[in-house]
């Protein structure tokens, strides 16, 4: 039974509840457009000793006619698309399901099934994207290691710092994941019998509380890392050698 006039309005909230989904939608959209363009462009992704994270690991395949990024990006893309945090973000910003708390969602009353049926039931495979992303993460750390080796020997350039910071942020994002938290210890009922897993779960839980922060910083930074490599590779800027 609906409650008086409250039921007719979109919401009775008076605050600016729409700002958050709007910003989320714009930033996610901008990232989507930028990363699609860069992934398909298939150029300016390597400049010694830096490799763009969108093209890591470096795949030079004769039989593949398109950009190698396509063979790589399904993993981090799937990981983010099924991430518990991003789900909240895009359900609110793009699906209006709901756009804000105590704001009417889009959809017919009575027909909602959420993540219990196709297509959103597929969100349940999040942990498999986690496994794939951990593999990619290993390559990003190798890239960051290789970014210390210039043609004239070891050194540190701005790019070295950028690549390393990127690998760090993506590591924090991946290891603060809810599925990871579950697999490392959350699935236990009796912690006292597994003290190591309990400690691990505790440490992950601390980062899990700020998973959203890692999600945004790593998202923005991975795009900036690619942009940096792109700009150096196409000659717009030169990499500053610090050491």
């Amino acid at each position, binding site marked *: *039974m*609906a*409650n*008086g*006039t*409250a*039921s007719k309005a979109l*919401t*009775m*909230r*008076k*605050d600016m509840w729409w700002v958050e989904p709007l910003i989320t939608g714009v930033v996610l959209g901008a990232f989507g457009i930028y990363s699609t363009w860069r992934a398909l462009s298939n150029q300016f992704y390597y400049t010694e000793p830096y490799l763009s994270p969108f093209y890591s690991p470096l795949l030079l395949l004769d039989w593949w006619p398109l950009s190698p990024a396509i063979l790589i990006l399904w993993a981090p893309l799937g990981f983010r698309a099924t991430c*518990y945090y991003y*789900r*909240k973000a895009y*359900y*609110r910003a793009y699906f209006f*399901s*709901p756009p804000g*708390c*105590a704001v*009417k*969602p889009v*959809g017919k*009353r*009575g*027909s*909602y*099934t*959420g*993540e*219990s*049926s196709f297509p*959103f*039931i597929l969100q*349940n*495979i*999040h*942990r498999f994207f986690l496994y794939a992303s951990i593999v990619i993460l290993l390559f990003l750390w190798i890239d960051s290691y290789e970014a210390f080796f210039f043609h004239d020997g070891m050194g540190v350039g701005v790019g070295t710092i950028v690549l390393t910071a990127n690998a760090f942020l993506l590591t924090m994002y991946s290891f603060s994941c*809810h*599925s990871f*938290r*579950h*697999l490392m210890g*959350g*699935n236990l*009922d*009796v*912690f*006292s019998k597994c003290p190591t897993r*309990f400690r691990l779960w505790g440490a992950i839980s601390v980062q*899990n*509380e700020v998973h959203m922060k890692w999600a945004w910083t790593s998202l923005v930074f991975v795009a900036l890392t690619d942009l940096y490599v792109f700009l150096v590779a196409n000659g717009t800027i030169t990499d500053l050698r610090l050491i």
Partner: protein
Amino acid sequence: MSVAKLRVFRGDSQGGEEKEYEVPVDEGMVVLDALFYIQANYDGDLAIRWNCKAAKCGSCSTEINGKPRLACKTRMDSFEEGETVTVYPIKAFPVIKDLVTDVSWNYEVSKKIPPFTPAEDTEWIMYQEDVERGQEFRKCIECFMCQNVCHILRDHNRKDAFAGPRFMIKIAEREMHPLDVLDRREFAREEAGVGFCNITKCCTEVCPEDIHITDNGIIPLKERVVDKYYDPLSWLLRKIKGK
């Protein structure tokens, strides 16, 4: 002493309308005090359910300026000078009179949750680290504001399929209990409809006890359901271990 304008819903299950009242604001006053003032000075028949006036009984849930809030925990000085404050009954449940709603559906749901089930030969020893997770959920004061704000119940009216966040944490608490031996994953999926939740976190946002309903209750429950129903690897592992 300043004067506040309150627009309060007056009506019953057949409908109703807003009525405006002017209330002098004293220091430390909360919305519930303002409603008492209305009862004492204007309309003695204004209905509001309350008990403790200390944010502990969970009776005085209302929608203040469109947001689910405890009337006894919302201070009048949190509003702008001269701002008109709307007070409505919680929307997800049928109005009985004015601000009082019929929340009995929740008690029916509660009864369906399989009770705590220890093993027959249980050794009644529990360690702090084993019970800590459940203790967070035990802070619940059953104000049902999470149930009210959840779009699945509030707007989609899927009370037939979804138990709601308050009962997700109740299931999670028992499922994670160190001495409980019952597997509630099938119940969580089939009866309580955990898959309906799209983790948009409004329940967490409104909880007056600051229970991390989604991060610590619903998501871990979803992950446990994934173990059982959507993860062939953990299925294989269970087979090998003979569990």
